[in-house]
């Protein structure tokens, strides 16, 4: 009886060490300096979209929060990730709504299904400007079913609409499911990390990338901060 219990415990440890030693990396992304002011977007040529916004929306190149917090930064494990090759079954969704991309930055795993929705009363033509992956662009009139696609290689892809020049979004195609996108307060969290050495990378669409090395030894939370230098223009 005792040997059986021991065996189960050992097996659990082998199969999923994260259950016993679940380390977490969390922290904040911020900036120094003065970022450029977001610019208002005039959508008057597309009335069906313009009327969805009570106040004109602004560009999302730099989304800054209180206390120099920087949002929309993709924080992920770029080396040492324990789950390479495990593709999530669930699809990620990218929505075109009010002539805007929601979310502005979408993270997905290589090989994971990507669904593109058009919730507007106008035609969109999504055009992700992929360089290492295969490039495509697809027209999507209102009421058409979602577009289903996937990317095989790791890449940060700029997404534009061939009909509405102001629309801009990003795809972050990663080889790991250990990622987070910083919130308005700049916060991010990467939980369930088994002990090991990791390289954490933070990517921002305008300010570039930064990396930080972290070692997780057991059931602990490591604090990592990233500070980007803001550009005035």
């Amino acid at each position, binding site marked *: 009886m005792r040997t059986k219990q021991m065996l189960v415990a050992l097996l659990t440890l082998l199969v999923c060490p994260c259950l016993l030693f679940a380390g977490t990396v969390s922290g904040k992304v911020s900036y120094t300096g003065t970022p450029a002011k977001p*610019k208002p977007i*005039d*959508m008057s*040529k597309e009335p069906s979209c313009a009327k969805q916004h009570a106040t004109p929306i602004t560009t999302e190149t730099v989304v800054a929060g209180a206390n120099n917090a920087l949002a929309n930064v993709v924080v992920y494990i770029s080396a040492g990730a324990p789950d390479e090759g495990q593709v999530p079954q669930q699809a990620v969704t990218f929505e075109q709504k009010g002539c805007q991309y929601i979310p502005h930055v979408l993270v997905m795993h290589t090989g994971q299904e990507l669904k593109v929705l058009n919730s507007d009363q106008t*035609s969109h033509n999504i055009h992700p400007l992929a360089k290492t992956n295969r490039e495509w662009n697809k027209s999507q009139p209102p009421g058409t079913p979602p577009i289903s696609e996937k990317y095989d290689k790791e890449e940060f892809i*700029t997404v534009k609409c061939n009909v509405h*020049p*102001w629309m801009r979004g990003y795809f972050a195609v990663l080889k790991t499911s250990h990622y987070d996108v910083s919130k308005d307060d700049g916060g991010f969290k990467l939980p369930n990390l088994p002990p090991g050495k990791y390289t954490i990378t933070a990517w921002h669409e305008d300010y570039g990338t930064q990396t930080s090395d972290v070692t997780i030894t057991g059931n602990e939370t490591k604090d990592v901060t990233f500070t980007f230098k803001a550009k005035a*223009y």
Partner: protein
Amino acid sequence: MGKILAVTLVIVAIVSAVPIVMHTWPPPEDISTHGYAIDKQMDETMLEAGFSFLAAQLLLALFIWQYAGRQKQDKLKTFPGGAKGLVIAALVLVGSEILALGVIGQKAWANVYFAPPDKDAMTIQAQAGQFAFYFRYPGADGKFGGMHPDKIDEGNQNFFGLDPENDVDSRDDIVAAELAIPANRQINLMLHSKDVGHSFYVRELRIQQDFVPGLDLAVHFTATKPGRYEIVCTQLCGLGHYNMKAYLSVLFQEEFEKWLKERAGQ
């Protein structure tokens, strides 16, 4: 049978002439200072072409009516004295009419295209790109910053490829998605295409001018009536052509200054 055709021809000709003679579909209101010349030219062209059209149709109907009952074996009579003189006369008549229209029309055309803009005309730049128009005002310094195609970043609202980091002139340039202008002031609009051929057309302004990639063309005009008018692209430019438009806001001077000030603060 032939007589029925002749009568049908007369009816079709007259019915199609009625809405033109009655001005059933008048052109949209003219809000420009030069538009009257173009409207007058259109009227003259319509009158002369319409008169020739009716004359030709009625003459055709007359001949059909005349020879409708002709038997197969009947020989056609030759035209008395031959038709050479008549053909030459018709050619001279039509030719001189078209020439006259062209010469008179030059005046309306040259007024817009060959005369230079006034010295105090306000310069605005229009940029067409798939599938939207954007307009640029020089700002407080009165100077446009340089354009750098590699700096174009539409997701960041940099449609003209400005480089404010290194180019001081471009820092106060005002970029807008609508063309706001003061009434009763001459505007010198410079047209620049980002990608393919487009066209700037405002019906009420009586202006239609192509954007040609690689060429900076200019048109000048003075709008007289405040209001909001549609600017449409009238050169097939791709998938989104049907949806390529912007608005022209003709404002009173004070309103225009307020508009500009609001934009400058953004």
